[in-house]
């Protein structure tokens, strides 16, 4: 640093960013999208008369709508770099709460609000444990899941509750222009979450925290509050999913929609591969949800045995994620 005249130096140098092979890179990154297209093509070719018909597409959409909502909730938490393993349990408890309240004579809107509050509170509690008490999200939400399922059993007394007012069931079973209402709800919620994640200061803070908690904190981001909010919103959105599931089935049990937890995490992971930063993102999650939905519907249509389906599901998830991970391979 002793050199004298470096006046002339401040010119070019150091910048090495190469925007070269963007298209090619995108192709590889899009492994998950490629996987989706391959799946759709495959099932279409196997059953051209069925697979892409209006009825069947509607079917798929209907089947994944609630998973899409819960995966949306999971996306929010995973953007922040955490997990929420209690989303499925929370949705079941919310459905059960709404059900029990309605059967107890509450008006439908009040029962729904109560169930949403329950979801919100569970989310809040998760948030407090993770953001304020610094528990690992994994263990906190795992334990929460256990307790919440227990609560759901208490609320339903171990039975399946049913016999809801028709206007409640309508939420899950009604149609608008031939399309079931839950599909609209899923779309609306996804768009809202996408907007929040992309365009609000809260969403951007979540992304920053997901990138580095420490740098965010030192840059003046209120990390705790933002994480708390992420979990709270996830609890709330999961509750919406659970209420719709109860309405869709016309019944509520403590373990209802259990597999949504696992599939929501899988969907988010599948979706993480489509962006360069490798972060959770809503569009990707929806691609992941679509893969899961198409796979299950297509295998059913081909009449594949349930156990074989399960084996194949695991393999397809691994294949899709591997495809996208190939680009990251370095020595």
């Amino acid at each position, binding site marked *: 640093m*002793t050199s004298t005249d470096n006046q002339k130096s401040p010119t070019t*140098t*150091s910048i090495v960013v190469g925007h070269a092979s963007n298209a090619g890179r995108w192709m590889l990154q899009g492994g998950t999208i490629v996987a989706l297209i391959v799946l759709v093509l495959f099932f279409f070719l196997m059953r051209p008369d069925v697979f892409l018909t209006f009825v069947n597409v509607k079917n798929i959409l209907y089947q994944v709508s609630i998973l899409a909502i819960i995966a949306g909730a999971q996306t929010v938490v995973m953007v922040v770099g955490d997990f929420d393993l209690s989303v499925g349990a929370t949705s079941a408890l919310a459905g059960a709460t709404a059900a029990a309240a309605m059967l107890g004579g509450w008006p439908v809107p009040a029962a729904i609000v109560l169930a949403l509050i329950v979801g919100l509170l569970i989310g809040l509690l998760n948030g407090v444990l993770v953001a304020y008490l610094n528990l690992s999200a994994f263990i906190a939400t795992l334990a929460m899941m256990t307790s919440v399922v227990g609560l759901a059993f208490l609320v339903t007394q171990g039975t399946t509750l049913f016999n809801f007012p028709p206007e409640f069931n309508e939420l899950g079973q009604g149609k608008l222009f031939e399309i079931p209402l839950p599909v609209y709800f899923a779309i609306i919620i996804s768009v809202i979450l996408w907007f929040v994640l992309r365009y609000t*200061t809260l969403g951007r803070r979540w992304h920053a925290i997901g990138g580095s908690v420490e740098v965010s904190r030192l840059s*003046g*981001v209120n990390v705790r509050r933002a994480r708390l909010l992420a979990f709270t919103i996830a609890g709330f959105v999961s509750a919406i999913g659970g209420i719709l599931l109860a309405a869709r089935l016309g019944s509520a049990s403590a373990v209802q929609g259990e597999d949504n937890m696992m599939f929501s995490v899988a969907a988010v992971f599948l979706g993480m591969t489509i962006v360069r*930063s490798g972060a959770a993102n809503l569009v990707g999650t929806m691609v992941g949800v679509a893969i899961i939905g198409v796979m299950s519907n297509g295998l059913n249509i081909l009449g594949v045995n349930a156990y074989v389906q399960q084996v194949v599901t695991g393999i397809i998830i691994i294949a899709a994620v591997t495809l996208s991970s190939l680009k990251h391979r370095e020595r």
Partner: protein
Amino acid sequence: MTLLEERPEVRPVDVPALAAHDIVKRFDGVHALERAQFSVLPGEIHALLGENGAGKSTLIKILTGVYAPDGGTIYRNGEKVDFANVRVANAAGVVALYQELSIIPTISVAENILLGEQTPSRGGIVQWGQMRKRAKAQLESINQRKIPLNALAGDLSPVQQTMVAFARALATDAKVLILDEPTASLTDTEIVELFSVLRALRDRGVAIVYVSHRLEEVFQLCDRLTIMRNGTHIVTKDVADSHIDEVISLMVGRNANELFPERGTATDEVAIEVRHLDGRRVKDVSFVARKGEVLGIGGLAGSGRSELLRILSGAQKHVGGEIVVGDTVLPSSPGVGKALEAGIALVPEERRSQGVILAASIQDNIAVANIPTVSTAGIVSGAKISTITKRGIADLKIKARSPRQHVGELSGGNQQKVVLAKMLARKPKVLLMDEPTRGIDVGTKAEIYRLIRQLAAEGTAIIAVSSELPELIGMSDRIIILHEGEISGTVPAEGADDELLLSYCYGKHQS
């Protein structure tokens, strides 16, 4: 503007913009700060100096609400304040650029610059247009027009990342701006930019605290300096009234020796030979390093120096050429383990992410690189680990409570010594060192230079990358300059000419 520009007269007003009185901070029994005093006036650049572990970074974290002090008071413009967290400090106009913590890799450059409260928004909705505009303006103000706003910050070079972090600190409209070793990973070009910005800020009345181990910088840039030692205040005085040797001796609490030891004599025996090596960025690089020789490698940021060392250490594969150590030709991707067995060891560039496991003890860190030596038939010997750890701690004078202390608790300089210790325990024939003294105080620097010489005298070949020309010249026997991955010049270090080296750095090729 040049680095050696005349300092304009500064007449600071009397009320300090930020002052700390009797700050005490302990970490698990370590007294990081013991009644530390510090104050900075508006319109001055105030250097905060001290050896590694003197407590500078800790003080900064307390001044900005990251840590709560165990005792003492902080005053902002003469009023007592209690910064509960970074946000409160920022809101009070106190902003820091922390040591070794820069950017969020997974979000865009623009977002990195306008993080948190700075994000332009209306009703909670981010105004992206506004954000890009302001981020662009910030980058322009530090002459970094080439950094793409929409790129992910993680895709930038380390230098660019530092500049982005700096842009963020500037974006907060700070009244007190604290910079903890901002130049550690910068080259001259960026340092010039940085300094001119800092001077402009000072002239607008901003109080600037500047931490650096590069004392030349301090003398070029700063108005006053405060020296800390062992967590306490030693002296505060005008830079104009200070002399560099005096500063050094106050920092280390003893008389500074000459920084660089005398050069030794390299043997004729070749330790490592590199022939036509090609990597991702490195192109057709050939050279030899001899036993007992210190071979310095210079170049601009991104010129491929680190990649060259990574390839030699087996951490990255090469696509062409060969590497010969003694009489073994290394395969194209030997892996670090094989390279270590062949006698090549690397002290990497990023200490915290590549050099040490922060959450592990000193002895566990040292053991990781020495698993073959501390084990028999797959079983590890605790006694052997203990022996090499104690030897490392003694030889390198590592300042630590015990061999079981976690490395994350050590100061930067001592962390670097741990990295050295673990590699030296392998008794390498060729020692690769990437920026061996980055972020290290003068006292420790001198120790490391002496150590390098001692190793050379014992017959080790040392290949060391440095971004600091005086260091490169002072510690090496011979210097290779890389430019865009190719060797642009090779010169003997003795009596090497700064300007010539720089011209090679900027792409002039040796005839």
